[in-house]
């Protein structure tokens, strides 16, 4: 267990940091993590994705930064802020907590050891406080840089969306340098009444990267959280969304597109807690898998007894380009209210032969015909992005990254 030894040593060295301000919270989080450690496949939610592979690498915490300036409003390098041009109040996580803009409850353990672990290393990170009635578009680069070797990084972004604020966030995850990375990222969103937040995230391909991402959002009355999640395969990627619709009239849209090829492994678990009445959720995830890729989609919708008049839609579609690619898709509905509308569907298919013939009969070669059909397939998700510029950018990127069948 050299991984755990490195982890413990890394954690202990973070305790020497002065002016941390949230040491006690971090220590508690690390204790919580140690109760279970890294989960194994025996746990239901890890059945198809074995996180113990992470233990094969040395989990040396690295928060060293490099000098980088690109056209983003905020750049985090290995979890640390290196560029910040956001007009709203921002700072490190501990600053957010110390001046009362971030609630301590983000440190609560939620039976998720990866959340605890991220909390234990919350010496950097970033909070963004979006003032009430504000309008903004924010571009974030979440960079992981490796100078060579094995490292663990814990990026954390906390977003407070004030009353009736209106925000678009484009976030890019990128890996640079070389070496093996364990990225354990967390984003906490809390949305006040009437807040609107559209979050586009692009998690780009990198070899030798194990990425576990957790997104938590809690929503108050009439708030609207729109997420567009673009995941391009990794050695091992797991991204979880946990949404709590805590007050009446809240809505969330979870849109997703994932590509995987070769022997990549990509797993999405989403949970939507319909806690109060008249909330809506709309989930649409699509995947394209080639090579011997494995993908997992688990969509849980939990309708609490108070959540009458819930309207929840879930849809997961998968396009398999090879016989060797695998998808495990599972809806999980738990409904404890009687007056609810809940629909779900999952499909697994290949490119339509009839459509392929039609396109080829018009002169398109096999490769162009496939790309045209895949373009149409992914377009359905990408078109949901409201911002023209971001939408066009995502279209170009995703078309460029379309998996090839035989890889």
């Amino acid at each position: 267990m050299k991984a755990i030894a490195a982890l413990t040593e890394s954690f202990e060295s973070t305790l020497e940091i002065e002016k941390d301000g949230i040491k006690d919270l971090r220590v508690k989080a690390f204790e919580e993590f140690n109760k279970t450690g890294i989960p194994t496949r025996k746990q239901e939610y890890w059945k198809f994705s074995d996180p113990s592979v992470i233990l094969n690498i040395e989990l040396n915490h690295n928060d060293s930064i490099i000098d980088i300036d690109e056209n983003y409003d905020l750049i985090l390098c290995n979890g640390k802020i290196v560029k910040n041009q956001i007009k709203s109040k921002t700072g490190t996580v501990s600053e957010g907590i110390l001046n009362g803009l971030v609630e301590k409850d983000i440190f609560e353990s939620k039976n998720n050891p990866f959340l605890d672990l991220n909390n234990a290393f919350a010496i950097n990170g970033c909070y963004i406080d979006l003032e009430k009635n504000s309008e903004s578009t924010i571009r974030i680069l979440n960079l992981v840089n490796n100078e060579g070797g094995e490292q663990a990084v814990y990026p954390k972004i906390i977003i407070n969306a004030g009353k009736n604020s209106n925000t678009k966030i484009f976030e890019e995850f990128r890996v640079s340098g070389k070496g093996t990375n364990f990225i354990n990222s967390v984003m906490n969103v809390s949305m006040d009444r009437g807040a609107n937040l559209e979050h586009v995230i692009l998690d780009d391909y990198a070899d030798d990267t194990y990425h576990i991402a957790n997104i938590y959002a809690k929503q108050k009355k009439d708030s609207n959280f729109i997420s567009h999640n673009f995941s391009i395969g990794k050695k091992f990627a797991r991204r979880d969304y946990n949404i709590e619709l805590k007050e009446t009239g809240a809505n969330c849209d979870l849109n997703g597109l994932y590509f995987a090829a070769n022997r990549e492994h990509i797993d999405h678990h989403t949970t939507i807690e319909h806690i109060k009445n008249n909330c809506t959720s709309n989930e649409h995830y699509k995947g394209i898998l080639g090579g011997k890729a494995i993908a997992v989609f688990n969509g849980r919708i939990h309708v609490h007894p108070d959540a009458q008049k819930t309207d929840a839609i879930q849809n997961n579609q998968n396009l398999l380009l090879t016989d060797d690619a695998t998808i495990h898709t599972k809806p999980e509905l738990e409904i404890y209210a009687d007056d609810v509308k809940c629909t779900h569907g999952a499909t697994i298919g290949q490119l339509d032969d009839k459509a392929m013939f039609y396109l080829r009969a018009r002169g398109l070669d096999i490769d162009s015909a496939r790309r045209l059909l895949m373009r149409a397939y992914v377009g359905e998700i990408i078109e949901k992005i409201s911002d023209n510029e971001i939408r066009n950018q995502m279209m170009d990127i995703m078309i460029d990254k379309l998996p090839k069948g035989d890889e």
Partner: protein
Amino acid sequence: MIKIKNLHVEVEGTKILKGIDLDVNAGETHAIMGPNGSGKSTLAQVLAGHEDYEVTQGSVDYLGNDLLDMDVDERACEGVFLAFQYPVELPGVNNTYFLKSALNAHRKYRGESEIDAMDFMELISDKIKLLNLKESLLKRPVNEGFSGGEKKRNEIFQMAVLEPKLALLDETDSGLDIDALRVVSNGVNAMRNEENATIVVTHYQRLLNYIIPDFVHVLVDGKIIRSGNKDLAIELEEKGYDKIIEGIKT
């Protein structure tokens, strides 16, 4: 232009075409008529290159080349165009984008550069007029939610843009109202010249009043049992297939 010799075709072990011989020269229009299930669409699909159909015997020479040796897209780029009996819906594929991709595929095959955006728009607007196509159809996904007639019109529209050498029109008339039949036929006629050829598959003599064929062939149970000029279509319309088949047997 195309010489079909003793063509035998099977699908999943069932014999469908049982020895077709057909010669079509440049400048000619041939009509193929025949009862349901006789193999008309099969012939059209095989010529277009559909891989579900297995050619077990025979040969097809197209402009001096072995057509059966070419891929589907190669045939298309060499000028073979099939107007489908049942055009395929392509959800999410914009009709204009599709047309441009098809045209550029042909141009690339010929070693030409991609068409300039302005030239393309000009070409499109010419062909739209020719076929009296609703412009809104160009902005929609290919064939999705199109009415039966709109789909057929869209096929001929594609043909007008791609300007094939050999057009195979599989029941292009079915689903068209009387006015549309006239417009589409006029469109097809306007494209006819000494350099290209057309094979029309139809059930109705009516179409042949507009697109006047040089030859009419009757296909029954995978074989051409009779060939003649346009009067054969009139005879068929009057007597029905049974009488013609009987006439052959006795």
